């Protein structure tokens, strides 16, 4: 198979964030503030990305608004010709800053929703007053006219709020909502007990989404990420490893997916040392699981292998300790039954939330 150019790039501008969501997918070992790429370095990476074939740029984090140069970065991205999307909790955005982002050419905003009431949202985000602030920000976004996607992360504690989340999206004037059942990567792995939805909740969410899709056709587009521990087939993770997109971590490491650093045998190139193009086409981490050659059975002889590329490598790592294994979400995996039992056990726990910490200011000395 020849390698296609990437379409999308996720730029994790910083791991800093005013919130501390227990389901955060940032790695437990976060990039320190002093290691973050500078404004001109990001601008160069955006240009390299556009030349390589990237069309969609997602500015993410952490909280991208924690970067003081956010407006400059958006301008640089638009100058490079990229469709520029800001993925934010809204905290750190003022009315003035939003107008500056508008003038810089920001194309789209994806706003996260931790809950549909102040009590729920502030408990999950670990930030008092966060919900009220977010609602203000949403008002400014609507006034300015930015296209908006609301991103609701759902788990055992807030899944009952899904119907209200669909209403809020419409009230905010969002064209799209992402209904994302919590995925357990990075920090979130510590919160499987606290957040795993029950099987009944997962089924109920699917029912609500299916009905809403019909009722809201042409008004609100619903993208849905089902609870995968309770599913029978794995997700096509990242659209296939090294097929569609790449991630750049705050310190410039280039990752095939945001959780790839959890796989110990992989080594990552850095945009500070190498051209993005060389990293995409020849980097060791991208080569490791690109295509189908690496696959073990049952994937190797499965007719779905180009459909899901064997599922998520980081999930195989996290759940089985083996990144080369078939994603255990799959019914064909010998570990599937065990995983479903584990999911049910997590869902019965009453463990408290474990909040995400802040990244260190300076890099910790290597041990």
């Amino acid at each position, binding site marked *: 198979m020849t390698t296609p150019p990437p379409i999308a790039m996720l730029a994790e501008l910083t791991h800093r964030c005013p919130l501390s969501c227990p389901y955060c997918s940032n790695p437990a070992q976060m990039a320190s503030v002093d290691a973050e790429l500078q404004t001109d370095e990001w601008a160069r990476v955006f240009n390299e990305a556009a*030349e390589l074939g990237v069309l969609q740029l997602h500015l993410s984090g952490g909280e991208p608004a924690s970067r003081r140069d956010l407006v400059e970065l958006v301008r640089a991205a638009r100058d490079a010709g990229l469709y520029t999307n800001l993925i934010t909790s809204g905290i750190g955005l003022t009315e003035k800053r939003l107008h500056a982002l508008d003038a810089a050419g920001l194309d*789209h905003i994806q706003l996260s929703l931790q809950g549909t009431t102040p009590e729920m949202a502030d408990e999950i985000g670990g930030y008092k007053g966060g919900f009220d602030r977010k609602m203000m920000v949403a008002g400014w976004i609507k006034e300015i006219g*930015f296209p908006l996607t609301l991103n609701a992360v759902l788990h055992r504690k807030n899944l009952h709020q899904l119907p209200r989340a669909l209403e809020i999206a419409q009230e905010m004037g969002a*064209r799209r909502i992402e209904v994302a059942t919590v995925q357990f990567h990075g920090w979130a792995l510590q919160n499987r007990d606290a957040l795993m939805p029950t099987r009944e909740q997962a089924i109920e969410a699917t029912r609500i989404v299916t009905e809403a899709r019909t009722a809201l056709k*042409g008004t609100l*587009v619903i993208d849905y990420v089902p609870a995968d521990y309770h599913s029978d087939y794995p997700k096509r993770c990242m659209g296939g490893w090294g097929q569609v997109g790449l991630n750049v971590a705050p310190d410039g490491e280039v990752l095939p997916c945001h959780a790839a650093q959890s796989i110990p045998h992989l080594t990552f190139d850095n945009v500070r040392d190498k051209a993005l193009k060389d990293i995409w086409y020849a980097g060791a981490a991208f080569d490791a699981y690109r295509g189908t050659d690496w696959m073990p059975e049952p994937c190797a002889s499965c007719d779905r292998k180009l459909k899901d590329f064997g599922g998520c490598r980081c999930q195989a790592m996290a759940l089985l300790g083996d990144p080369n294994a078939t994603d255990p979400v799959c019914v064909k995996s010998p570990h599937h039954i065990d995983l479903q039992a584990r999911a049910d056990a997590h869902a019965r726990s009453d463990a408290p939330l474990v909040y995400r910490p802040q990244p260190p200011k300076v890099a910790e000395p290597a041990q």
Partner: protein
Amino acid sequence: MIDATAIPTLPRGVRLHFDKVRDTWVLLAPERTVTLDMIGHAILSEVDGVRSFDDITAGLAEKYQAPRDQIAKDSAAFLRTLADRRFLDLMTEVA
């Protein structure tokens, strides 16, 4: 079908873009990219937020010397798909 007087418009955040690397026109939308074939590009090039669906299909029929109702049928199906995904607004004139 689409009402003959409806005015198709690309809403903010949806735009045509020539993809140099892949040598093709694409429609860029929030977190989505739609690769356009020649017909799709021809239709969207006529969408200017001013002219009605009827005007657009009449223009296309003349430009490509093709039967008007066939063009209207194909354009309607294509534009309807985009509208359902919220990549296109269909404005109806309010009297």
